[in-house]
């Protein structure tokens, strides 16, 4: 199914969170067409697996942990970018406060890597297990991500004497059923008073330097892989035959 999606959407970089598949076996499947040319990137992060169509020499990890993989992508004749791949813990295991703490720590790690790289051309992709409106993602000391490119274009803002860089978070556009496809990327139903049912836990964020070259209409939450549905007849993710999270696909020129 992943190979079908890669072929159908001409994917250059595949990022999987908490994949239980053997990466070498998946690599063989991805390369069933010899022209596909996928490589498995070097990583020590157990919960993130990254395949690229370009040589692994162009992708160098700089910081990792059990749940985070930060790497530079340095393609020929392209400006280097920093790719941050994340899989944050589930709400089943962490309080809202703890999730916010994870965001603050991640924001610091990103800032350190940007400082070391000497630029802020940064893309963050992952299963954050939080919605874009939650304090850890919106708060200045967290990931500080906003729904508007125009706001993010300010670059940074100062709160209580500290300067915080913005991320643009295009996933705000993917709440609800107005776009026809799906009302989110993850569905959860329980007997609590506040229940969103559909959540947008799977996200892409861009620093303003990259957001200006990004077209939000070229970001999709997928509900099918070719002719195979990724959702059940009621529209919810088919966790039995696919995944409990729906994949996202986006295009970015850099």
């Amino acid at each position, binding site marked *: 199914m992943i190979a079908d999606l890669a072929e159908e959407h001409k994917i250059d970089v595949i990022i999987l969170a908490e994949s239980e598949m053997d990466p070498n076996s998946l690599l063989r499947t991805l390369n069933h067409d010899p022209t596909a040319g996928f490589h498995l990137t*070097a990583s*020590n992060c*157990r919960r993130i697996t990254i395949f690229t169509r370009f040589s692994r020499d162009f992708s*160098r*990890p*700089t*910081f*990792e*942990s059990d749940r*985070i993989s930060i790497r530079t992508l340095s393609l020929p004749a392209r400006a280097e970018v920093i790719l941050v791949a994340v899989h944050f*813990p*589930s709400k089943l*295991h*962490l309080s809202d406060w*703890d999730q916010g*703490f*994870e965001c*603050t*720590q991640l924001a*610091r*790690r990103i800032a350190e890597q940007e400082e*070391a790289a000497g630029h802020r051309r940064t893309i963050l992709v992952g299963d954050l297990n939080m919605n874009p409106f939650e304090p850890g993602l919106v708060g200045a000391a967290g990931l500080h991500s906003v729904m508007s490119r125009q706001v993010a274009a300010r670059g940074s803002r100062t709160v209580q004497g500290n300067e915080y860089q913005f991320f643009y978070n295009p996933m705000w556009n993917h709440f609800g059923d107005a776009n026809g496809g799906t009302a989110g990327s993850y569905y959860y139903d329980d007997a609590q008073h506040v229940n969103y049912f559909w959540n947008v836990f799977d996200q892409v964020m861009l620093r303003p330097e990259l957001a200006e070259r990004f077209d939000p209409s070229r970001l999709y939450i997928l509900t099918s892989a070719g002719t195979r549905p990724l959702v059940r007849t009621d529209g919810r993710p088919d966790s039995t035959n696919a995944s409990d999270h729906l994949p996202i696909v986006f295009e970015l020129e850099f």
Partner: protein
Amino acid sequence: MATQTDFWGEIGPAEVRTPAAILREQAALLGTKTRNVVVAKVSTQVDDDTFYHSFKLVVPALSGYAYELFIIANGVNPYPVTVAFSPPVKVKTEEEFTAWLKTILSSVETKRIISNLLAQATA
């Protein structure tokens, strides 16, 4: 003139070893085991009244690549310590903390990561 009275009483450093001191002791030991191919570093940040200590494995030969093994937090008092795992782990005393740290540093997963880093650094 009245005699001055010392309200301070006896003052000296707490006899308990702080979590940061214990982490630094262990961090210093790794370099000798790996001929400094993989070293451990502890960095501390303070937010309000909480100290956050990050324990990282660093590979100088890989342009300073760092793998963060864990983050712990403690308040003004060194214990209890909260480990930012999922779910978070709370250890109440120095003895509990050293026992927890020994388990983590000698774990199969930590050895796997260090072995991988050694291989990558010498590839």
